[in-house]
C-alpha cells in the first residue's frame, strides 16, 4: 500500500490583531490610571485640647509668633517678613533654644491657602535644613540616607514645637 505521507501542518493562527488588542488595553490603562504620586507636606497636628487642661505658661522670649493676616501678609513677632526671612528667624530661634522654643501660627479666615502653604513650606524647610546639618555633622551623611534610628535621634534633637490656632478669628 502506498500512502502518500505528507506532513500534517497545523494551520497557523493569524495573530496580527493581538498587538492591536493589547494596545487597546494599554491605552485604556493609561487613560484610567494616574501616574502622579501623591505629594505634599506631611505635618502632624496637636491632639485636641482637653477641657481641664491648663494652658502652659511659656516664656515670651522663646515664642515666635507667626501670623498671616487677611491680605496674606506674613508677620513674625509683629514685624512683616517674607518666607525666606521667616525661615532664617526660625533657624536662629531653634538654634538658640532647641527644646524650649515654640512657634505659634495664627491665620485669618480670609488668608489664602497658598500663603499658608508657603509658610508651612518655609517652616519645614527651616527644620529640615537644621536636621540636615546635624546629620552631616554627626553621621557624615545626608538626612535622607540615615536609617530610621538615626532619624529619630535627629528629630528628637531638633523637635518641632508648633502650636496652631485653628479658630481663625472672625468668620
Amino acid at each position, binding site marked *: 500500500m502506498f500512502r502518500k505521507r505528507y506532513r500534517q501542518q497545523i494551520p497557523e493562527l493569524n495573530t496580527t490583531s493581538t498587538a492591536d488588542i493589547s494596545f487597546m488595553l494599554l491605552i485604556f*490603562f493609561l487613560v484610567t*490610571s494616574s501616574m502622579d504620586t*501623591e505629594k505634599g*507636606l*506631611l505635618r*502632624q*497636628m496637636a491632639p485636641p485640647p482637653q477641657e481641664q487642661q491648663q494652658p502652659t505658661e511659656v516664656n515670651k522670649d522663646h515664642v515666635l509668633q507667626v501670623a498671616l493676616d487677611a491680605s496674606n501678609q506674613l508677620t513674625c513677632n509683629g514685624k512683616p517678613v517674607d518666607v525666606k526671612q521667616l525661615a532664617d528667624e526660625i533657624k536662629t530661634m531653634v538654634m538658640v533654644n532647641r527644646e524650649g522654643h515654640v512657634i505659634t501660627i495664627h491665620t485669618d479666615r480670609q*488668608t489664602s*491657602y497658598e500663603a499658608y502653604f508657603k509658610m508651612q*513650606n518655609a517652616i519645614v524647610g527651616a527644620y529640615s535644613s537644621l536636621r540636615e546639618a546635624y546629620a552631616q555633622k554627626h553621621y557624615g551623611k545626608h538626612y535622607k540616607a540615615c536609617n530610621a534610628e538615626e532619624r529619630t535621634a535627629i528629630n528628637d534633637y531638633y523637635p518641632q514645637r508648633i502650636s496652631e490656632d485653628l479658630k481663625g478669628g472672625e468668620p
Partner: protein
Amino acid sequence: MRPMQSMYRRKRRHVPSLNMASMPDLIFTVLFFFMIVTHMRSDEVKVRLEVPQGTEIQKLANKASVVNIYIGKMGKKWAVQLNGDIVKPEEIPARIEKLRAGLSPENAEKLTVSLRADRHTPMGIINDVKNALQQSYALRINYGGIEQNDAK
C-alpha cells in the same frame, strides 16, 4: 558577479516581511508595567482645584491608610469633598470614624489625611476642616502640593 538578468525573465523581488510574532509580547510587557506602577483613580474629584507649589514636599507613602479630602470651587461656592462625596466640615468626624473602622488596626493608627486644597481657598474653610480632623484624632495631614520649578 551576478549574471545579468534577462530582460524577459523578470523575477519579482519583494521586501521580506517582518516577523511580528513578538510584538504582542512586547506590548503586554509595557501594559503590565503600567498596571503595576499606576493605580486606578479611586474617586472622581468633583471640585475644581489647583494645588500650591512648594519646595520641601515629599512623596506620600502607604496609600491604604490615606483619606483624601479635596477643597475647591464647585460652581461659585467652595466645597469640601471627602473621598467620593461632598461633605460639610461638621460631618467629617463621623466619616473619619466610619473609615477608620474599615481599616486594619495598624493602618488605622497611621491614618493620614491627604488634604488637597485649591491655592485660593480661604483659611477659614481649611481651619474648619482641620478642627474637625483634630476632633476625630486624624492628626497626620499631608498638605498636597506640587514641586516648584526652579527655572525662574
